[in-house]
């Protein structure tokens, strides 16, 4: 996993609540057995005028000019700004894979769905929850300022606007460490392998019905 420490990135606004993972990456693309290559199909139904299929040359497809991420001013965006309950619905990790592949490294929202939120951290994406009032100001500033960038400083736990205003955010200490160091969860857990084995053996004796072969 890539490390996430500090990012100064162009911001793209997606002004909707309840953006679900079906919208982020539609089902037909989940048939892939790979982890990469989902970026061109992120938000597929909103982004293109036709119905996308896996394996297509997406550069030849008609784009929806009204969809915000198709606007030239947001090309190369690395920070996604959105509203409440982002990433609700299906647990598909293809959603964060698609967003990352598209170029987003941080997502700022009023709130996130739990499973999506968790999946972001496993892929080096930082999901940031900010109060609705701060989000509203950010939407106004992004709209009014072409080339609007935000600094996302994970060690300092702050989002810094171009006018210098710093907005603090909360992040779980363990997840922060993992992101800053790019740590692999599995490696960390396996440091406790002896404890897991001991727990399992005790369980096998006390609740043998859990261990049907």
């Amino acid at each position, binding site marked *: 996993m890539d490390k996430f420490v500090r990012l100064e990135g162009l911001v793209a606004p997606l002004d*909707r*609540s*309840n953006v*679900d993972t*079906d*919208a982020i990456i*539609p*089902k*037909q693309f*989940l*048939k*892939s*057995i*790979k*982890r990469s290559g989902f970026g061109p199909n992120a938000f597929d*139904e909103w982004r293109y005028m036709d*119905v996308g299929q*896996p*394996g297509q040359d997406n550069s030849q497809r008609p784009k929806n000019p009204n969809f915000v991420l198709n606007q030239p001013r947001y090309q190369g965006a690395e920070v996604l700004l959105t*509203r*409440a*309950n982002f990433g*609700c*619905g*299906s*647990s*598909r*990790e293809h959603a*964060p894979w698609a967003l990352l592949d598209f170029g987003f490294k941080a997502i700022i929202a009023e*709130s*996130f*769905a*739990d*499973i999506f939120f*968790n*999946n972001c951290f*496993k*892929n080096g994406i930082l999901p940031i929850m900010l109060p609705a009032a701060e989000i509203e100001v950010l939407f106004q500033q992004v709209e009014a300022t072409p080339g609007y960038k935000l600094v996302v400083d994970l060690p300092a736990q702050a989002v810094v606007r171009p006018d210098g205003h710093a907005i603090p955010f909360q992040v*779980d*200490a*363990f997840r922060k460490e993992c992101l800053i160091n790019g740590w692999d*969860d*599995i490696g*960390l*857990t*396996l440091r*406790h*392998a002896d*404890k*897991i084995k001991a*727990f*399992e053996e005790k*369980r096998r004796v006390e*609740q*043998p*019905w*859990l*261990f*049907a*072969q």
Partner: protein
Amino acid sequence: MSKTLYDKLWENHVVHQEADGTALLYIDRHLVHEVTSPQAFEGLKLAGRKPWRVSSIVSTPDHNTPTDHWDEGIKDPISRLQVETLDANIREVGALAYFPFKDPRMGILHVVGPENGATLPGMTVVCGDSHTSTHGAFACLAHGIGTSEVEHVMATQCLVQKKSKTMLIAVEGKLGKGVTAKDVALAIIGAIGTAGGTGYAIEFGGSAIRSLSMEGRMTLCNMAIEGGARMGFVAVDDTTINYLNGRPFSPQGETWDKAVAYWRTLHSDPGAQFDRVVTLKAEDIRPQVTWGTSPEMVVGIDAVVPDPAKEADPVKREGMERALQYMGLNPNTPIQNIAIDKVFIGSCTNSRIEDLRQAAAVLKGRHVAANVKLALAVPGSGLVKRQAEEEGLDKVFVAAGFEWREPGCSMCLAMNADRLEPGERCASTSNRNFEGRQGPGGRTHLVSPAMAAAAAIAGRFADVRDVL
């Protein structure tokens, strides 16, 4: 100190806990399907890791498999490759049980696990699928995980977790005629909103919940995720234990007795404290129909489509307007005036035998309306299908003009060939009415199986209480 059911389930699985509360939780049951597992198996292989305990794995393909012409196999080559990849991965590592494509016990994982007794009270159950909350019906700590966590569970038999807040949703009283667990689930989501349960583990209680069958409880817990909660569960009682007795992977003899004694402790103690309590009166719940593109956009069958002009919050208002535009609906239209094109009875929410019986009871001696282009009945598993056929339900469906299909996820998420065409409107017993969920441009209205059957006959939404 009085403990909640969640406290008990949590404490029973903590392998290790850090000072900040981050814990390693032991995972008892890992359900694996074809869509969210290939990258996890590949990750294991690349890292040179072996699965920790393959006897925790129960697996079947379900998302991609066709529901008709099984003799022709899986025609879509990309879907076929994904299913074959699961075959190869399970063949290589092993599992407690694997039901490959066309196996008599194949089906939707959340139907297959419980009916085989592979979901037992007190277990932690995970799967790369958000509807894993279904298994909470058995007082399990059951929730969906992403593919990285699928790999993590395979490699370590654990998950890194922090304790959730707790919410009790109590539904008290007696459900009216024609009002089912699906209506209860939708009414709850309507009350708390799709983000209402975010950060919470929900316990469903109250006399109306206790009177539900296991299948009803599965329907309810299945949709906890639609209320934002990764998990929802119901305490163990006689209904739970009676359901499990004699299932293939249920314990037997002395082990059964010992297990039952433990299972009987799986309830919240009197006086246990919850972070939030929501109470609903069963008598207030009417058959529900969603009108928008989020499960919280739901009303009773006797209501009208809500008017965004009456919504004060500008973000919500815009969401409603966008939903109505996508759904092709006007504010204040009576729900019963909305005509439908297709009907889907199936999915991990509503494809079990009782669901099929409820639909068949409405369909018997009647026929699907002329404006309904397609009505699908898709049993949740091979075993459900066989039982339904033994009861003659398939004949009721077919006589009414339904297609009687092979088991699978089917048109709930339309990864296979079963889908809506752009603009088509569907009465669906599934769980999500998101834009494009049942096919690009498709319009989904979530309802119970009995309500889907009533809509099929009327060709528009109709109050099932009038036809029962």
